[in-house]
């Protein structure tokens, strides 16, 4: 029922909403739950497993029952802000994902501050004021729409609160984030906070936790009936939302806290059932004055009713009621504190786990620190705010307290559970777990709360045990006859659930991962390239012409390269400028072959291995000057190779004078390949004499192109054909590419053709023909392993496993049927091997193509002792057929190397 006056709702702004399809009206300022209560809707969907009736139980993030589906699969009615047109469906513990796209946009903010205050109740507001006034950069985050915390429940200090909110807003270096939950507290004061669509990464020099406390339920027979609610929730609904859950209320408590509820609802409360034999006289007298009966030393044994509570059994008495407001005590909300590695201890007097030792630069204050009187909360908040500011280099006065009344809070008398019929005293409402379930766990031998949690699933639902966790601990203690509770389960992020989309933020779709493009990318797109992802790069894979499939396109591109001229965009290759007097010496130590004596103007192919001797990367290195080299790397490994160089130079050989600069994007690279390459060069770079005599294989020249563009032209070949690599300033890349294409001669080709051409020559692709277990010797590249010098990894070739004769070695394969393409990844076996698993395997196909030049298929493979098997037949058993092939040398085309000169 909606009370005619009071509350912080705006009665002039009615909002229509539906619950399970039925229309209701609430007010601006309502939560869905308060609006439901105002409309007399207390009951929500039945319980998850047992199907028992359940009602709204709490008023905040600790709600176990009132799960609803909006667009999101699961929300708490108690934390959903009411908006016009809201349509909620109550849920029985399980949400539903729908295909409808999420229109919301999510973003992230990085924020740095001197003082982060989490929680905007009296303690937190006090801390933020104190810190903010010093000029310290202060952030105050509270999960609720309004600051105030329990002040809004208790209707206290609202004027002070209003002033404080205004002042905080006006402080230039203070930022108030309402509707923002600090959900994860990580190392070095990194606190992740979430609002509906924004994720904050807050790095704070100091943190003040003022997260309040959660009220505990009571465990007795049928304690799950609708109408049983936390006492503070009842009070909050009435005072903050003017929503009255019932007319005839009984309060059951173990502590002082619930008296406030009774007093605020005086006239509608008949009885207070207090577990303490001597509740504070002041409270008892006040209750009596208000016409409320106090039953001291009593507990509720059972709730009466079927669909909703109709009364309670206390001792032998039955007392009628339509709401039972329960308070089993308070748990300081130490979730974030514990996440930050703070230690808690059990406080016998307060009957709760309380903060003990902070690990990070942090304070924890107010109810979160088990301080339950308002004066104390404010005082701790102000002190913490000032101290935090001082610790971060600011100074100021501790603000004067707006409230100094002395409240004595008497110790609670906890009741862990009241025994009764099996299976009806609920410990975890959301998981439908009862004392009997806990008893089964302990009976089976479990002692640890962690085991009981997992056996019963207590505390693992949406509410993560905010209400049930401690109840379980108490029940276990009582069942095991322990003197006091033995410890909590681990607090883990997030404090309250966070949507996947929020965590993903902007890293979706187009922005999921950077797409890297070369300077010539647009040309490739315009000319119909199909792209391949290589690392983050987009590389043209092949350029189909109308009517062509991939095979036809690649054969055409290959043919062009072998018989005419073709060009490829090789700009993605990693490039590292290496300078310094010791550059040559450095390269000698990291590459398997020697570089120190390479002549200026010359190029050399090099192989890099990890210290375990396995091939890691390869590329061509040019000597630009006595003390300067330019190394190229594979596209995918560019960053890794630079890191590798830096690591060795800085950490192992700091005495070497050598420096590395990534110039991958300084240069755009165009490979001009084929017997007619010189014709293209003659047009594009007329000043360069590229005749055989003037331009040796594996040398380079710095020159100007026809249009004056400076270029570095290298005669290197990854295809076996006559080839030139034109390197130009990246900004000129597109223009020079256009100039090359404007000659009208070359065919553009992509990575697939590049792979075929190199495979025909037996050149490996690191990562395709190697897999981190392959040595240079395995590849038949002994020639590149210098016997005369040491280099990283060399020692590894003496290990017993590296010298085994049956290591897998790179060989060629020619399928018996020249049209049959061996699938890459096919495993190879010896002929006549029985196909009963495990079938002994000889190796596998690493690369396999149709060759235009060979007019047949061919492949490369790694085969055990493969070099000894040349000429033999092997079989590749596939799902639907078996392919026979002959092992060959891994060079199929122009073994004499005659073609590289054109």
């Amino acid at each position, binding site marked *: 029922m909606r009370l005619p006056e009071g509350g912080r709702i705006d009665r002039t702004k009615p909002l229509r909403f539906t619950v399970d399809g039925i229309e209701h009206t609430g007010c601006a300022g309502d939560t869905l739950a308060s609006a439901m209560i105002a409309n007399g809707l207390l009951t929500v969907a039945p319980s*998850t497993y047992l199907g028992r009736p359940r009602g709204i139980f709490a008023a905040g993030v600790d709600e176990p029952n009132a799960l609803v589906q909006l667009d999101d699969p699961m929300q708490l009615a108690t934390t959903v802000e009411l908006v016009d047109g809201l349509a909620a469906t109550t849920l029985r513990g399980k949400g539903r994902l729908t295909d409808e796209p999420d229109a919301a946009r999510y973003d992230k903010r990085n924020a740095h501050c001197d003082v982060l205050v989490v929680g905007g109740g009296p303690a937190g507001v006090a801390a933020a004021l104190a810190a903010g006034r010093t000029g310290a950069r202060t952030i105050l985050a509270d999960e609720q729409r309004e600051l105030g915390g329990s002040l809004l429940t208790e209707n206290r200090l609202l004027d002070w609160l209003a002033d404080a909110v205004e002042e905080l807003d006006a402080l230039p270096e203070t930022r108030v984030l309402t509707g923002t939950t600090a959900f994860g507290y990580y190392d070095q004061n990194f606190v992740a906070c979430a609002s509906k669509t924004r994720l904050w990464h807050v790095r704070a020099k100091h943190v003040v936790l003022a997260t309040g406390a959660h009220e505990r339920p009571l465990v007795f027979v049928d304690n799950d009936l609708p109408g049983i609610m936390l006492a503070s929730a009842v009070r909050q609904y009435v005072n903050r939302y003017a929503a009255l859950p019932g007319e005839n209320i009984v309060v059951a408590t173990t502590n002082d806290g619930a008296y406030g509820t009774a007093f605020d609802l005086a006239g509608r409360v008949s009885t207070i059932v207090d577990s303490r034999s001597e509740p504070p006289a002041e409270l008892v007298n006040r209750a009596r004055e208000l016409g409320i009966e106090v039953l001291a030393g009593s507990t509720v044994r059972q709730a009466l009713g079927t669909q909703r509570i109709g009364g309670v059994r206390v001792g032998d008495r039955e007392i009628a009621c339509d709401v039972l407001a329960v308070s089993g005590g308070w748990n300081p909300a130490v979730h974030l504190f514990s996440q930050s590695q703070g230690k808690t201890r059990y406080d016998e007097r307060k009957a709760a786990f309380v903060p003990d030792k902070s690990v990070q630069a942090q304070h924890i204050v107010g109810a979160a620190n088990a301080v339950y009187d308002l004066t104390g909360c404010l005082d701790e908040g102000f002190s913490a705010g000032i101290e935090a500011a001082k610790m971060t280099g600011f100074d100021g006065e501790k603000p004067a307290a707006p409230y100094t009344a002395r409240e004595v809070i008497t110790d609670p008398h906890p009741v862990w559970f009241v025994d009764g019929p099996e299976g009806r005293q609920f410990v975890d409402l959301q998981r439908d777990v009862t004392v009997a379930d806990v008893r089964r766990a302990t009976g089976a*031998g479990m002692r640890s709360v962690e085991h009981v949690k997992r056996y019963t699933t207590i505390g693992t639902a949406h509410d993560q045990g905010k209400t049930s966790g401690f109840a379980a601990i108490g029940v276990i203690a009582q069942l095991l006859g322990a003197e006091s509770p033995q410890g909590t389960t681990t607090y883990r992020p997030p404090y309250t659930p966070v949507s996947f989309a929020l965590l993903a933020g902007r890293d979706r779709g187009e922005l999921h991962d950077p797409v890297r493009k070369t300077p010539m990318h647009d040309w490739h797109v315009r000319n119909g390239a199909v792209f391949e992802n290589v690392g983050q790069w987009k590389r043209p894979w092949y350029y189909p012409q109308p009517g062509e499939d991939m095979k036809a396109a690649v054969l055409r591109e290959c043919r062009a390269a072998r018989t005419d001229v073709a060009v490829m965009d090789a700009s993605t290759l990693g490039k590292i400028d290496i300078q310094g007097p010791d550059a040559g010496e450095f390269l000698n130590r990291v590459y398997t072959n020697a570089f120190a004596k390479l002549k200026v103007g010359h190029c050399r192919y090099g192989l890099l291995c990890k210290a375990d001797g396995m091939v890691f990367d390869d590329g061509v290195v040019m000597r630009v000057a006595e003390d300067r080299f330019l190394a190229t790397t594979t596209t995918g490994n560019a960053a890794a190779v630079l890191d590798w160089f830096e690591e060795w130079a800085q950490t192992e050989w700091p005495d070497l004078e050598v420096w590395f600069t990534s110039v991958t994007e300084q240069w755009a690279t165009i490979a001009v390949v084929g017997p007619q390459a010189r014709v293209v060069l003659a047009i594009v770079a007329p000043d360069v004499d590229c005749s055989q005599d003037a331009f040796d294989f594996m040398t380079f020249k710095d020159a100007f192109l026809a249009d004056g563009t400076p270029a570095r032209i290298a005669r290197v070949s990854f295809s076996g054909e006559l080839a030139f690599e034109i390197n130009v300033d990246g900004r000129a890349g597109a223009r020079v590419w256009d100039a090359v294409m404007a000659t009208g001669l070359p065919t553009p080709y992509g990575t697939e053709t590049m792979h075929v051409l190199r495979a025909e020559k037996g050149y490996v692709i690191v990562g395709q023909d190697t897999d981190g277990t392959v040595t240079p010797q395995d590849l038949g590249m002994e020639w590149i392993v210098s016997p005369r010098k040491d280099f990283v990894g060399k020692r590894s070739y003496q290990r017993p496993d590296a010298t085994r004769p049956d290591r897998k070695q790179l060989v060629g394969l020619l399928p018996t049927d020249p049209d049959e393409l061996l699938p890459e990844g096919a495993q190879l076996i010896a002929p006549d091997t029985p196909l009963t698993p495990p079938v002994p395997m000889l190796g596998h196909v690493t690369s396999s193509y149709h060759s235009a030049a060979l007019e047949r298929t061919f492949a490369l493979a790694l085969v055990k002792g493969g070099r000894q098997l040349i000429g033999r037949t092997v079989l590749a058993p596939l799902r639907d057929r078996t392919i026979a092939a002959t092992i060959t040398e891994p060079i199929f085309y122009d073994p004499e190397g005659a073609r590289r000169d054109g």
Partner: protein
Amino acid sequence: MSEHPDRLWRNPEPRAGYDVVIVGGGGHGLATAYYLAANHGIRNVAVLEKGWLAGGNMARNTTIIRSNYLWDESAAIYEHALKLWEGLSAELDYDILFSQRGVLNLAHTLQDVREGSRRVNANRLNGVDAEWLDPDEVRKFCPIVNTSPDVRYPVLGATLQPRAGIAKHDHVAWAFARRADELGVDLIQGCEVTGFRKHGNKVIGVETNLGPIMAGRVGLAAAGHSSVLASLAGVRLPVQSHPLQALVSELLEPVHPCVVMSNHVHVYVSQAHKGELVMGAGIDPYNSYAQRGSVHVIEQQMAAALELFPIFARAHVLRTWGGIVDVTPDASPVIGPTPVDNLFVNCGWGTGGFKATPASGWTYAHTLATGKAHPLNEPFALERFTSGALIDEHGAAAVAH
């Protein structure tokens, strides 16, 4: 078969000595104890657990079980495990909720495709069920995977192991524990091994917070803490301990029928029996024993998850956590003797040892009972780091599982 039996274990006091002491009451320690008793008749055995039984990685893993490893040695031991899984509920008389719903490993690049096909072919020849699915078949098998070609890293295909799946991790641990306990094994919780009693180069017992316990043989099964323990005995192990994080969503109506893993975009996910999505990603890069990691790893994992499964956008993360995984240089485990006599080690399972639990226990029990490796664990000896005969499963372990 009931979900939970009424009796699990006894909580005995430790005795003065045992024939075999197993250090670490995770899945592997418990399975080892069970098979020592069941297969070898060795029942004078204690499992010493510093915390609560199976409270380490066993409580934290995403429960993916598969055997589609690349190399013969791995395929053999993981396939042995899978066969044991298939009979485990019956053997242990406890429903471990083993669900063979199939595991997809997605390929997003041409190299992924090559590797996937290489693995499928090797698996078949090793007697491991394996199939290659094209994107259309992927969509049929798991309709919520985004197989559109227009995404940043489109799905180019997938390997499928139909017999792979998930099981309920806690039930597995408790099932082994209960049977071991029944067969006389002492499961001792809250018992931390703090040192070793040695006679020359021979271990004769362990020091614990509950006092010394003598032992004929000592088997370490301490997963993330293996290095710490081994170093107490003067042994350096080739493992590094890293955080590995996982998370669950709220309970959802069934949406996800199988297990999907993607190395390239770094995420793997299944929907557990109760209905929560269970997912993980790669390890945090630094060494740690803190059982927690950094939040950006989770953020990247969520971004990856939404690329693959747009339907998850509105689901919520309910809880995140971390375990401590012991990673070896070749992403394969170590099971066998150490340079110290009577001290054995079972470690290095890294991000993928849950699936191996029964076979790890089976072979380790054999090793502890006989002093010699079982043929299945022979290749997984420490010596391989000297000889260089590594079993490099990085392809299979690039993403945790």
